[in-house]
């Protein structure tokens, strides 16, 4: 035994860290612990249902458990099932890779009106997260605040026709919801000028393939910067189309209030020229993510330096760096952090490791996930590559069938 490391969160940043640790030191004991009964976090519940290529990264993660000796402990909540300090006592090092799953709130008057929805909350419902709320009524003219990649994902899914979702893993409920949405027009707004917008150019180009939309790009402006010019060119190339759903890109709009008597009916913005109010039937906020509050993130990160928080305690991925950077950006972080953890590791053979979890009920393991995965992919409906098990009970039921075949 050369040391025991617990990683909290089996999403991409946790898995990439486990990969880097085990590559550097193959006989290390690495345990990935997740709140959900299933692994892969953001890849399963955050990467868009129609971006299956991006989800292909799970083939690397499967290898962690199948060949590299990592173990998965699902359905374990840090805080309620076991304390962080208990875990630190049981392992030589603990890494927080819990991500950021809560929507950053739009802190303006009216943002608590019915009809204002966070993008994370909405995409969790679309991707059938077991704790998701019901999909809401968006009305004919939703307005999106924010234009990063999460906002563009949402825009694209809302604008797609049923045929364009072929090959995805969008579930039956969300598929029916989209088909019945009655959306006529989507307005997407950003605070900065288009040249400084947060979306990636490739995400904008992808919108050019949408079959049934007509797109307007208003005041995209100009730039001297070559990267920004690419962005602007991609945006301007979207302009036009004769499809039924209208999409309007707006820039330089800072939201100041959500207006409406009993539900969101408009957003008032400040602009370079003064103020402007855009009517809508719902407001979708995609302005970043925050901790859901299950771990005291601010306090934990107070002394953070290069991923180290305290002796034997580290953080990686979005939990450490905030809601910025793509999946591979977090992979780049993992190599450096693994080196740092291994450099400081002084294994204590007296530590009980996963023994600390022994008293907990209904822990799922990797074999349990494989049974869930097989059940989901064995008979997907036509045009779908997977039909997710949508409830925690359903997942636990399948995971439990151990040794009964």
């Amino acid at each position, binding site marked *: 035994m050369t040391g025991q490391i617990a990683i909290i969160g089996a999403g991409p940043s946790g898995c990439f860290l486990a990969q880097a640790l085990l590559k550097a030191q193959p006989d290390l004991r690495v345990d990935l612990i997740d709140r959900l009964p299933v692994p892969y976090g953001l890849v399963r519940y955050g990467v868009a249902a129609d971006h299956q290529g991006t989800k292909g990264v799970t083939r*690397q993660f499967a290898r962690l458990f199948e060949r590299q000796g990592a173990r998965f402990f699902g359905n374990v909540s840090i805080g309620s099932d076991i304390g962080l300090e208990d875990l630190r006592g049981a392992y030589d090092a603990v890494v927080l890779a819990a991500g950021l799953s809560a929507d950053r709130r739009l802190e303006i008057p009216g943002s608590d009106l019915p009809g204002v929805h966070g993008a994370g909350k909405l995409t969790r419902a679309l991707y059938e997260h077991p704790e998701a709320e019901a999909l809401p009524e968006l009305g004919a003219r939703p307005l999106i605040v924010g234009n990063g990649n999460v906002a563009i994902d949402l825009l694209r899914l809302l604008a797609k026709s049923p045929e364009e979702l072929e090959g995805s893993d969008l579930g039956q409920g969300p598929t029916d919801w989209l088909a019945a949405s009655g959306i006529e027009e989507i307005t997407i707004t950003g605070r900065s000028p288009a040249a400084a917008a947060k979306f990636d150019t490739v995400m904008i*180009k992808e919108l050019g393939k949408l079959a049934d939309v007509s797109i307007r790009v208003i005041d995209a402006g100009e730039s001297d910067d070559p990267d920004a010019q690419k962005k602007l060119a991609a945006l301007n190339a979207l302009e036009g189309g004769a499809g039924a759903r209208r999409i309007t890109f707006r820039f330089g709009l800072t939201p100041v209030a959500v207006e409406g008597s009993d539900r969101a009916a408009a957003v008032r913005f400040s602009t370079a020229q003064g103020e402007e109010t855009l009517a809508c039937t719902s407001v979708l906020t995609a302005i970043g993510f925050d901790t859901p509050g299950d771990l005291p993130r601010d306090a934990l990160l107070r002394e953070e330096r290069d991923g180290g928080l305290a002796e034997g305690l580290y953080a990686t991925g979005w939990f450490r760096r905030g809601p910025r950077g793509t999946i591979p950006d977090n992979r780049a972080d993992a190599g450096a952090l693994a080196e740092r953890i291994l450099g400081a590791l002084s294994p204590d053979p007296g530590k009980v490791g996963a023994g600390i979890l022994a008293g907990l009920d209904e822990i799922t393991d990797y074999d349990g996930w494989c049974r869930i995965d097989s059940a989901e992919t064995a008979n997907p409906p036509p045009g779908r590559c997977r039909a997710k098990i949508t409830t925690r009970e359903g997942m636990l039921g399948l995971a439990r069938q151990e040794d009964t075949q």
Partner: protein
Amino acid sequence: MNIQVLYGTETGNAEMLAEDIVAELEADHTVAAVNLADFDPSEFDTGTLYLMVCSTYGDGELPASAQPFAEKMAAAKPDLTGVHFGIFGMGDREYDETFNGGPATLAALMTAAGATQLGERIAHDASGAEMAEDLAFPWAEDIVAMAGDALGQAA
């Protein structure tokens, strides 16, 4: 045969495939996987077959680990006459316009320096139904067979 599997990766998928190709070939050949980030163009050798595995990132660009290699190629301008390589691209047809832009750039860098490409540039689609290795293993075998003749002549 001496074979190096040079990979350019961003997410790690190309690295995994490179390692799988090594495992597939190592019974019959002397073969190793090398990250393009750690490879210097001065190391190219006419007696070695180079199997290149490369993804695409962002807007049709080279993946992070291939970028330092491209910079070294631009700075050193090596003469790669007599160097043989095959190239396997990993991409995602969700991003049609820029599909396999990374490997196309890499192949162009090699041939512009005088290297000889064996076989066609193969492109795997991450959004397709096929596994990358199901395309890559037969591709590697084909290139190795072609190289048997080509490297023999060069020696």
